[in-house]
């Protein structure tokens, strides 16, 4: 009787094995092979990795991906935390939930279109530049669109919504008695925050941040729309190999590198993560 329950997982396990594990293994295999004269050559070699990580234009994209991902994640946390804090502790529960619903509504636009709409805001003839020019604050339009900063802004826009929900959920779980106890023991608001609230919200914060990092490393759409072709990220490099050279072995290698980056970050902060508690 007790053995039976495990059987219910069989469909899911089979599905994952066939459509997740197997493709993953295949991807790793492909990354060591190469394409010659449009034919797949199944010989083990590190040429793809050398090409991407060695001298040449592609290594920069790896570094840039790490930079953009880290900056976007950090900024999103910095933007979302104060808002979440205010909502969790300083605003009435009902009002706070209403605000959350409002703040998350833009999440329901298409992801692509949302990135696109930042072009309308940040472009040379966009809303920001037009406003700044009209008020005379600047004499020439700022070049924000089609740079990595536009990509970062696009990421922060999306990630801050994710982090807001994550951090809010974590903060709300902190019993009020803890804060009252801290105050009883003479802690100021700042001290309470640093020594009680922040550590208690850390697992949720880190888990959310980790997920944002994963999204940032792997995202192809936002950098392609907002970042232009000048300052490419690793995801764009990966797609480039496939679309321009039809070299999917190089694309596979780029993907493995992406997963490697994520793995490194996971190993570093893994012990604080609680993915099950999302």
């Amino acid at each position: 009787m007790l053995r039976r329950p495990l059987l219910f997982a069989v469909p899911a396990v089979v599905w994952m094995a066939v459509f997740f594990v197997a493709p993953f293994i295949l991807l790793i295999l492909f990354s060591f092979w190469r394409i010659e004269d449009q034919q797949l050559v199944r010989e083990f070699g590190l040429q793809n990795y050398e090409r991407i990580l060695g001298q040449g234009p592609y290594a920069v994209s790896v570094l840039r991906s790490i930079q953009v991902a880290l900056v976007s994640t950090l900024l999103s946390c910095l933007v979302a935390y104060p808002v979440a804090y205010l909502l969790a502790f300083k605003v009435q529960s009902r009002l706070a939930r209403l605000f959350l619903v409002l703040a998350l509504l833009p999440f329901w636009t298409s992801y692509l279109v949302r990135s696109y709409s930042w072009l309308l805001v940040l472009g040379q003839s966009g809303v920001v530049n037009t406003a700044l020019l009209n008020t005379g604050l600047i004499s020439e339009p700022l070049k924000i669109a089609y740079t990595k900063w536009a990509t970062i802004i696009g990421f922060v826009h999306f990630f801050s919504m994710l982090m807001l929900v994550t951090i809010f959920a974590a903060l709300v779980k902190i019993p009020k008695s803890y804060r009252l106890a801290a105050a009883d023991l003479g802690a100021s608001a700042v001290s309470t925050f640093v020594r009680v609230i922040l550590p208690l919200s850390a697992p949720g914060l880190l888990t959310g941040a980790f997920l944002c990092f994963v999204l940032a490393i792997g995202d192809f759409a936002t950098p392609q729309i907002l970042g232009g072709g000048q300052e490419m990220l690793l995801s764009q490099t990966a797609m480039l190999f496939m679309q321009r050279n039809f070299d999917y072995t190089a694309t596979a290698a780029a993907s493995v590198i992406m997963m490697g980056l994520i793995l490194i970050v996971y190993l570093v902060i893994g012990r604080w993560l609680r993915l099950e508690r999302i």
Partner: protein
Amino acid sequence: MIASWLRIFGLAGSALVLLGYLIFVYLPVGVLILYSFQDGSVPLPPFRGFSTRWYAEIFSDNRLMAAIWRSGLLAVSSAFLATVLAFGAAYAAVKSTGVNKAVLNWLMITPLTVSYLVLGLGLLLTLQWVGLSRSIWSLLMGHVVISIPISFLIISSQLGRYLETFERAAADLGASPLKTLVFVVAPISAPSLVASFFISLTTSWDEFVMAFLLTRFDTTLPVEIWAMLRRGLQPTTNAVGTLVFAVSLGTILILEVCWTLWNRQNKSAEMDR
């Protein structure tokens, strides 16, 4: 005196932070919606006047309409499959211990850490290896893979400890494990099942990278939107975005209303007892 000034300062500061964030969040969306009604060919300032011709253009675009239809079907199918599979897995995970449980959890949750680009590429390579061509069916496989982790997490978090009581009662009444699962556990888990279905729905509906890699002629809406984006800044793109937004909002509103009505019905049923 100073205390009250500090309080006002704090209040104003808080309001500023909250308002500021809302402005940041709504800025691109507001611009999007506004310029979808632009009476001019460029969705940029200045706003020249009100026109709905871009919406008319979208509705007469058959290719776009077909893509929307396909996206919808794909979303519903992948959400349904993911929820059913994740439900079985979550139930098994909750009931198992030790290595079994750990492996199962790992297998179901890890795909969360794998980027869609990587997953899509893996599937694409698999297709080539096996000799199949790209199609919306391969995309279905991929979408279920990305939807299972979150569904698994949602459902397993709601399978409580009181579960055993119901299971024993069902067993006492002669139900097989399968019957227990379908007729007892599932109804109890209904909220989490609905939630996972809904989240899987939205995940699939809006997913771009895998759709881009795995479909060719039977494209989904995001892929079509991508093609539109390639044409530069156009009000028709704004219109599509606004429409998607409106439909999503409408769906949420309907769900909210249904949820509230269902709750009210349940409450009155409880009071009748």
